[in-house]
């Protein structure tokens, strides 16, 4: 045992150096958020010479212009509802396609595969125009529903189900279980790992999306946190790195916390996509 630890020492050192490089931007972000305006613009030391809470106070007090908590709330709502809808809708569709011999199955599957091959940029601006003409811009509708049109989830779960034996379902059916009971007691537990995968991917996709929300929101109150931070960077008049970093810290923490909690699932879920 001792020998193997000594053997892996060089690689631990290399890994640690890389880890420090990876963490450096985040450390810089946190420390800069505690600097004064002039220090943040002028100094190059990573540590603040005089610590100040001023930037955070200012972020909290300027919520009327930059409602950062509202943005966080919007993001939480959109990602939660969007992810849930996508997973539910796709599970039902995949089940119906893989097991129930739905009429028009071949046509639907054909659309699913075709859609996978066509890049999203093609539908982006027309979709925006549709929502504009429908008067639905600046509502939660375009921020949530278009994500449900993604066919990736149906594809993943359909593939999973057709390669999965039907024995359990058949046994349940013979025992006289209803369709809902089969779905709830047999299919959901079976499909859970793939559904988690899809959930994580969908969550990250919605959370990170920048271009689409920037097209379909107008008011400050409807922005997601990702979009809100962009507003702060681009605000032609925003020249305060310290305050910028304070906002970024607040915006980043929830994401990192969710990430650390879900870490286990994310690791697994990435595996699942890799296989396909």
């Amino acid at each position, binding site marked *: 045992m001792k020998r193997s630890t000594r053997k892996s020492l060089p690689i631990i050192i290399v890994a640690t150096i890389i880890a420090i490089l990876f963490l450096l931007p985040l450390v810089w972000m946190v420390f800069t958020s505690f600097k004064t*305006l002039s220090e943040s613009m002028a100094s190059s030391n990573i540590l603040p010479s005089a610590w100040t809470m001023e930037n955070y106070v200012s972020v909290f007090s300027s919520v009327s212009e930059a409602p950062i908590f509202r943005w966080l709330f919007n993001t939480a709502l959109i990602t939660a509802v969007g992810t849930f809808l996508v997973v539910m809708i796709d599970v039902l569709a995949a089940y119906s396609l893989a097991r129930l011999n739905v009429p028009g199955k071949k046509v639907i599957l054909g659309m699913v595969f075709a859609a996978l091959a066509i890049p999203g940029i093609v539908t982006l601006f027309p979709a925006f125009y549709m929502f504009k003409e429908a008067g639905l811009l600046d509502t939660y509708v375009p921020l949530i529903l278009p994500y449900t049109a993604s066919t990736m989830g149906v594809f993943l779960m359909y593939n999973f189900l057709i390669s999965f034996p039907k024995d359990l379902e058949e046994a349940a059916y013979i025992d006289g279980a209803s369709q809902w009971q089969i779905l709830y007691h047999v299919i959901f537990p079976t499909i859970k790992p793939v559904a988690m995968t899809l959930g994580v991917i969908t969550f990250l996709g919605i959370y990170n999306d920048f271009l689409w929300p920037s097209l379909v929101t107008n008011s400050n109150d409807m922005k997601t946190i990702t979009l809100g931070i962009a507003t702060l960077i681009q605000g032609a008049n925003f020249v305060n790195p310290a305050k910028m970093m304070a906002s970024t810290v607040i915006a980043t923490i929830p994401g990192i916390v969710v990430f650390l909690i879900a870490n286990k699932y994310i690791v697994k879920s990435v595996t699942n996509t890799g296989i396909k």
Partner: protein
Amino acid sequence: MRLTKFLAISLSVVLLLAGCSSSSSDSEKTADGKIKISFINGFTGGDGAYMKKITDAFNESQDKYVVTELQEKDHYTKFKSGNYDLVVVHGNNLETYNQDGLIQDISPVIKKAGIKESDFHQAGLDIAKLDGDMFAVPLDIHPLTMFYNKDLTAEAPKTYEDLKALNTKLQSQSKDTYTLGVPSSGLVEFYMLMIAAQNGIELKDGKQLNFAQEKYADALMQFHDMVWKDKVSPPKLGLDGEFQTFMKEAKEGKAYKTAVAITGPWFYGAAKEKYGDKLGVAPIPQIGSELAAYGNAHTIALSSKVEDEKVKEGIAEYLKFMFTPENLLNWADGGQAPVHLATLEKVEAEQEKYQIAFQNAKQFENYVSPPQVYQFGEQMRYMNESVFSKLVTTENFTKKELMKELKKATKLAEQVAATAPQNE
């Protein structure tokens, strides 16, 4: 069955929320029967709070109307895709918005409000008039402004010779201190039009901008010389470099610092926070052959979608309220220089309090307004994003190379001008 219930609940929440926000933006009246007026502008910087003050005061002053104000960085795009009654349009965009049929003549409304042409400074009228009519209400002009650090120069430089003399003095003290910074991107459109104005060059040629003029190439070369020949600016500054170097502390071989910034008045707040009483503000120096100021302007325009007479009456009331000196003074407090004469008088009476507005109002006399062409911003795009940066970052850039670029920019501008709607 728990899952289905959850699904049903979350769906209804979505629809409820969606319903709420869409219905509130569509309805013309609020719950208590007030007529709603929506106003969109791009005041996302420090100035936004001051416009809000005016709007809030108006909403409190009467109970027939309520103005909802949306401040959005990307407000032009949002105006195109949304439903708004009033919009702030920059002086250089007025023609475009007119030709695109997005805004309508505001003069009947301002007549109702009792606002007259003679209420405004000529510089503001030059901007807001299209074909001889006041098409929008001019709010302010924000010209290029000069900030200076009183520790480094007691007097504001007034000519190019002053800038050079100051630079010699500063350089003798420290190699990292210069007179000013020439940025490679950011405010460069202002720089390019300012130098045209200061050399008496007319860029507008029919429906397009014509940059390919020998005289203009000579004028622009001065920015190249400022960096590479006279070296009054450190080389290779990036976005907003003129302001960022002004805010820096010099560090031997590591960071430059400048004594002067020719920049936008909206940076006043940050500069004041850093320098306090050491911050000087003055009109820009004469760099070209004559004294002229250039900058953009805010005007308030009426959306072409507004037809309801009641809404128009409300807008008239709002404008009447805004354009009274006591109220518009808030705008000067926010650092903007109003073109409303009665308000300007108040600004002059309290020069110290309204330092930046006062200094900028002094530039109105020499102000040259942006050329009125269709899609001004798009016609300028190549100049803004490509030509200026080449000009000031390439050490051996020649006039010949510049002319080639100017010709290309002109050709692109011509094609942009050709996209104008045919109905004009």
